[in-house]
């Protein structure tokens, strides 16, 4: 039986892991490769490395880092952050990334998804969507790390992206991100039942039962979290042991 996946996310700036809360008080948290190896040993099913480097100049360090990660870890990993062209993706995949995630650039140029899927296959194209539920009850797509609102509904964009060739969706609820009050079950469930591709739920995981909820009631295929793992509030093993007790299939 296919296992539900637990995925730690590491923020990368200038080739180093950084930790912060809501992009504030960011401090150095060490070598991404060492941290990645540690997470893999602790039972992470996959890793996501999100590059938050501001300038293109410093992005060159990313491909070197991806190559070091590919040498060091024995589980799959996704690289995201500022990817906007076939050439960007080619370099990352050639250096050993298993998948890449696209967000704002894909929304502004949906054709990018089709080009990437045709060139590299849908299995390595993850579409990341940041979404917020507004007062009207609808979930809207946000861009640029959540700073820019659009008038497009999350479900509509997700469906279009899957039609264009996105092989997986990484869904972050801005309402829940950082709250540790649980994942957004309703929008996750809406996408999981409407679309034929796996959904990675992100934002709000604070306790082991939150993970169980989003993988059952939310219908997610995988759950992603960052700070609770970095700050050692919960270990990956604790999450997976709890899921196993709840008869949710996980790799132990």
């Amino acid at each position, binding site marked *: *039986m*296919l*296992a*539900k*996946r637990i995925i730690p996310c590491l923020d990368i700036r200038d080739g180093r892991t950084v930790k912060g809360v809501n992009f504030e008080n960011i401090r150095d948290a060490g070598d991404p490769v060492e941290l990645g190896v540690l997470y*893999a040993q602790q039972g992470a*099913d*996959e890793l996501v490395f999100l590059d938050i480097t501001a300038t293109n100049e410093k992005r060159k360090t990313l491909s070197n880092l991806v190559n070091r990660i*590919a*040498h060091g870890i*024995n*589980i*799959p990993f996704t690289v995201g952050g500022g990817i906007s062209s076939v050439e960007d993706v080619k370099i990352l*995949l*050639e*250096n*050993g990334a*298993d998948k890449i995630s696209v967000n704002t650039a894909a929304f502004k140029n949906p054709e990018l998804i089709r080009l990437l899927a045709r060139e*590299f*296959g*849908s*299995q*390595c194209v993850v579409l990341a969507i940041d979404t917020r539920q507004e007062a009207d009850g609808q979930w809207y797509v946000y861009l640029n790390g959540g700073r820019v609102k659009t008038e497009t509904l999350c479900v509509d964009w997700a469906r279009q992206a899957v039609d264009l060739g996105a*092989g*997986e969706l990484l869904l972050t609820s801005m309402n829940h991100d950082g709250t540790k009050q649980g994942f957004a079950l309703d929008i996750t*469930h809406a996408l*999981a*039942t409407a679309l*034929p*591709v*796996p959904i990675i739920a992100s934002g709000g995981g604070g306790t082991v039962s939150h993970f169980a909820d989003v993988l059952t009631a939310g*219908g997610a*295929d*995988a759950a992603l979290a960052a700070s609770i793992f970095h700050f050692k509030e919960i270990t990956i093993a604790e999450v997976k042991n709890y899921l196993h007790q709840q008869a949710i299939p996980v*790799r132990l």
Partner: protein
Amino acid sequence: MNIVIIKYNAGNIQSVQYALERIGASAIVTDDPEAIASADKVIFPGVGEASTAMEYLRARQLDRLISGLQQPVLGICLGMQLMCAYSEENNTSCMGIFDETVRLFQPQPGGGEKVPQIGWNTIFNLKTKLFDAVTENSFCYFVHGYYASLGEHTIATTDYVLPYSSALHKQNFYGTQFHPEKSAGVGEQILKNFLEKI
């Protein structure tokens, strides 16, 4: 030992080389027919689309070279599928080393199985030395939308939508649908077995 990884127009080739390095083996990545023919062990990996890959291989006569190899050959993911007889992916006639047909998973509506299958699934009914010291129902990492049906060459089974071949074997040819190079300790054991026991 002289290990060769076949280079062609498919992704994920380097990852296999890095995985071998982690278990202390070194391999060269090449499409040179002489280097491939003279290797002790040949690995044929890949992630991608079947018809494009077969066209590329045929144009360079690598398909005939691979089919004719006498030394142990391990196909991984797309590599294994290309060693089968036929793939529904763009109706592609493949190498025919294994008789199996490669078919598209049918997505199960309403939150059922998604296509492609992405993630960790179990392997069981394990046969041959490729799986020495690997316990039944170990988890391996899969990324694929097409599958090889069960048949006389099946040496590992996985259940997704239906039971299918997660590994195949015939004479000197082995194939895994999962990625041993991304399957943590279990995958490393399988790669070691291929290098040391086969």
